């Protein structure tokens, strides 16, 4: 049986860990509220953007545009959004797993890491990692997404990369976050998008474009890419805080359980040592008589 002093030391160390995890949980709860609100505020923009671009593609027949056709380059760019910090449960590793287990070959992929954790994990796995964008994820700004978007599109136009993917964590609600890998470019022609989604708002006359479709796509698709990246950033940040809150909540509960168990052990040890001392004293006094 461990000595009283050992148990006491262990208990106080767990106690201070529990205090830290509790504080971290409170911090991420507050951050979650804020980031969740931001994610909700911008959701309608992305949904609308996604729907418009897809219905544009669906209605516009055969388009001979590199954004749709592809440019023949085998290189694939993956923008990977993770956190800069750990202690968020499976948040970071889930995104990493998603990319490493996907069918994207290691040799063709260039990772654009947004978030230190993802960057470290991917270079450990032996992927080619491009410039670090980690500072963007601390406070997601639309201009950051714009800068990254235009950088990727320039590389795409120059034929340096042939496909663009986004790996992020979708914020479904406070407890459910799912990692997602999404193809941004070249755009796949949507199938069945003209089903129930469109019927309610189906225009009486076909949609006109000014300027012409190809030119319009040329202008709208960069905005589309930017907005999807920004949406991914915002959702990921909300998910990160949600995941950290959950992880820290679990850690706090575990710490409390361990403290309870150790307290019990400590009291038992104390009791048995008192009993032993008493027995020794009584035995000693009997021997004197």
């Amino acid at each position: 049986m461990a000595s009283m002093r050992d148990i006491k030391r262990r208990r106080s160390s767990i106690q201070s860990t529990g205090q830290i995890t509790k504080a971290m949980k409170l911090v991420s709860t507050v951050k979650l509220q804020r980031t969740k609100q931001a994610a909700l505020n911008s959701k309608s923009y992305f949904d609308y953007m996604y729907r418009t671009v897809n219905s544009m593609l669906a209605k516009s027949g055969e388009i001979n545009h590199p954004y749709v056709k592809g440019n023949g380059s085998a290189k694939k760019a993956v923008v990977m959004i993770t956190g800069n910090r750990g202690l968020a449960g499976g948040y970071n590793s889930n995104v990493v797993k998603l990319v490493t287990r996907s069918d994207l070959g290691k040799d063709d992929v260039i990772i654009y890491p947004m978030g230190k954790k993802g960057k470290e994990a991917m270079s450990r796995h032996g992927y080619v990692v491009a410039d670090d964008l980690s500072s963007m994820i601390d406070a997601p700004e639309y201009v950051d997404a714009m800068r990254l978007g235009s950088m990727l599109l320039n590389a795409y136009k120059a034929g340096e990369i042939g496909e663009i993917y986004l790996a992020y964590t979708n914020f479904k609600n406070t407890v459910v976050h799912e990692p997602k890998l999404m193809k941004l470019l070249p755009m796949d022609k949507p199938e069945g998008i003209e089903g129930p989604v469109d019927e309610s708002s189906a225009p009486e006359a076909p949609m006109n474009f000014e300027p012409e479709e190809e030119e319009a796509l040329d202008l709208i698709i960069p905005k589309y890419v930017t907005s999807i990246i920004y949406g991914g950033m915002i959702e990921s940040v909300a998910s990160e805080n949600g995941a950290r809150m959950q992880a820290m909540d679990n850690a706090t509960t575990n710490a409390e359980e361990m403290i309870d168990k150790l307290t019990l052990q400590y009291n038992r040890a104390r009791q048995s040592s008192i009993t032993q001392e008493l027995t020794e004293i009584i035995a000693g006094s009997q021997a004197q008589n």
Partner: protein
Amino acid sequence: MAQDTNNEFEVRIITPDRTFFKGNATMVEFNTTEGEIGIYKHHIPMTVIIKPGVLTITGAEVKKAALHSGFAEILGDSVTILAEVIEWPDEIDEMRAMAAKERAERYLAEKDPKTDMARAETALLRASARISVIK
């Protein structure tokens, strides 16, 4: 739908961070890549790309805003503007807009081959839009 005498339609302006405006209007005017347009109800369905300019919403009252980039989807009974950058007059810093306008004008006048002319032109449009919204 065509029978109603009401000539109001729904206007929605959405930005990446918020819903900027939602309400009814009888007319909406803004600047596009093809020139300035004004929209009444029962416009033919059209998607247009926005150029920096003044957005005017005429409804119960007239509202103005500086609209810088994005695109608009026009349907018979609604107009949805997906705006990347848009500002109400009270969000604009006049001094900054003035300075930006002067700077852009100077760049355009100097015709330095090193400056990005297209960018300077957009900057000038943007600054002018801001200034005319305040006035």
